[in-house]
């Protein structure tokens, strides 16, 4: 219950930030061409992407250094993790995805390839389906924020491409993921 309340507060804060960021981008029409180009050329290089985007927004959005840091960290988050046999997004994931959604809406030429993965427990074909469901969970969340569906592509690799070949719970946790590319 407490968690829930905290989560709601967090979401309010996030939406406020998003509004602020949207505001800054619409105010900034003159620079948007350059902005698009920058982001379009590095659809998967998220650290630099965050940096560039904030460069535009800094002056106009009136964000504090702390808020800028939060946004840059969110945009640098390109891997999202899941519980076993689950596809629900954590509160942290939702928070970061709001920034990603915002960036996608600001740059209509930007496209995300959402690659879903599973750990090796369970059968391969079932895990292929599970990986897809995880990537779709992120796709849907971004769409709810207003991102156009033609900016998003969902691929599942199931358990075929683990980042960690180990059999520990920690290794499995690292493998249950969606990567933004």
């Amino acid at each position, binding site marked *: 219950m407490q968690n829930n309340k905290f989560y709601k507060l967090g979401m309010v804060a996030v939406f406020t930030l998003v509004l602020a960021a949207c505001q800054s981008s619409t105010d900034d029409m003159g620079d948007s061409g350059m902005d698009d180009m920058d982001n379009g050329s590095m659809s998967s290089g998220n650290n630099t992407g965050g940096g560039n985007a904030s460069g535009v927004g800094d002056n106009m959005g009136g964000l504090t250094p702390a808020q800028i840091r939060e946004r840059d960290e969110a945009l640098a988050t390109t891997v999202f993790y899941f519980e076993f046999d689950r596809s629900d997004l954590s509160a942290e994931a939702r928070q970061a995805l709001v920034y990603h959604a915002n960036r996608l809406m600001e740059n209509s030429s930007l496209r995300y390839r959402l690659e879903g993965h599973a750990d090796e427990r*369970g*059968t*391969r*074909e079932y895990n292929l*389906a599970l990986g*897809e*469901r995880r990537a*779709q969970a992120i796709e849907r969340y971004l769409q709810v924020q207003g991102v156009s569906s033609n900016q998003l592509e969902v691929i599942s*690799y199931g358990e*075929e491409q683990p980042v960690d070949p180990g059999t520990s719970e920690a290794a499995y946790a690292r493998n249950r993921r969606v990567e933004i590319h």
Partner: protein
Amino acid sequence: MITRFYRFLFLCCGLFPSFANAQLNIVITQGVDNPVPIAVVPFEWEGFGLLSEDIDKVISNNLRNTGEFAPIDPANMLSQPNEQDEVYFRDWRFLGSDFLLVGKISRNENSQLIQVQYEFFDVLREERLFGEVITGNESQLRDIAHKISDLVFEEVTGVRGAFSTKILYVTEDQTRQFPYRLEMSDTDGGRPRILWEGEEPIMSPSWSPDGSQIAYVSFETGRSQIFIQNISSGVREQLTNFTGINSSPVFSPDGNRLAMVSSKDGNPDIYLMDLRTREVQRITNHFAIDTEPSWTPDGNSLIFTSERSNTPQIYQVNLETRWEERLTFEGNYNARARMLSDGNNMIIVHRFDNNDDFHISVLNLERGTIRILTETALDESPSIAPNASMVIYASKSGNRGILNAVSIDGRVKFRLPSAQGNVREPAWSPFLD
């Protein structure tokens, strides 16, 4: 001189890269309590030079690896006959051997063909059971050995031998230029051959019922799509080009249709593809995951995995009436079912309640009982031998994927480890003749 010869061989292999170099080697880990003692006498070679295969060794290993036979060490044999006239049954009774196989190999005078003559005897009844002369070229020595093994196995056990069949499997080795390979070998791991290789994952190989074609999933286009490939010609074709997942292809018993999974309409459901028209027809329509279809032996129904009741369980759908029925109720994970030809027993991947491990198990549909066949933690991808004697499956040993096999009665176990990399998703061929 010898080194030069080997260098020459090596070069030849380089020119024909379809032959894999890291073969699987069978290791029997558990046999039956009272295996049948049998003597496989070394076959005499009457020609010049060395033969590329020891027929008698292949036969004797084949029989030993079923766990049902205990071949006698040739070093302990009192005599080494090669034909009926040289056989003294008392020698073999003395060694406790119930059966005796003898033979010899010669080169045909007028051609380069090889002739293998063999005879099989019942020692206790002092009777010649059968024998024949098989002609072939030298590259077929292994095929001849497998054929003799099949006949001996059937004579003694009453079950048709499956030594002349093949297995498909996927290997992955990130140190290779093409990490993912689809390979085919003899059931003992011999004569591995690469059927496809690439930089992207390969999944779910399966055989057409006549053994001439295979279907599998490749990610080479950037997402999972189904491909079909003719084994002898190598001709290959992409069958699906939908968005989403396209996977889990399984040929119908008549070979005309392919059961498959696609999420092209939103989430994974079961579809049928008519292989003549390439038309795709939707079979299940549920918001839960439906996957891993396979056929009932009569071809009238599909069994599949669905998590519509929250955990993965096995369901059956009648293709005519579309009636759907749940088949598994015990355990929190039942998946990838393959039905035995009796229509009453299914091999499944099973995890019982409050347990983390996945085991290959047999579900008896009439009685509703589940019998667990394996004890390692991550057992998956079971595939049934065409004579229904063994199930080959994938498991993990340390961090490496390996293949294992277990008899359906649980008494016999063997492993097929690879020297390097991961091996997985074995698919046992149908009978090939």
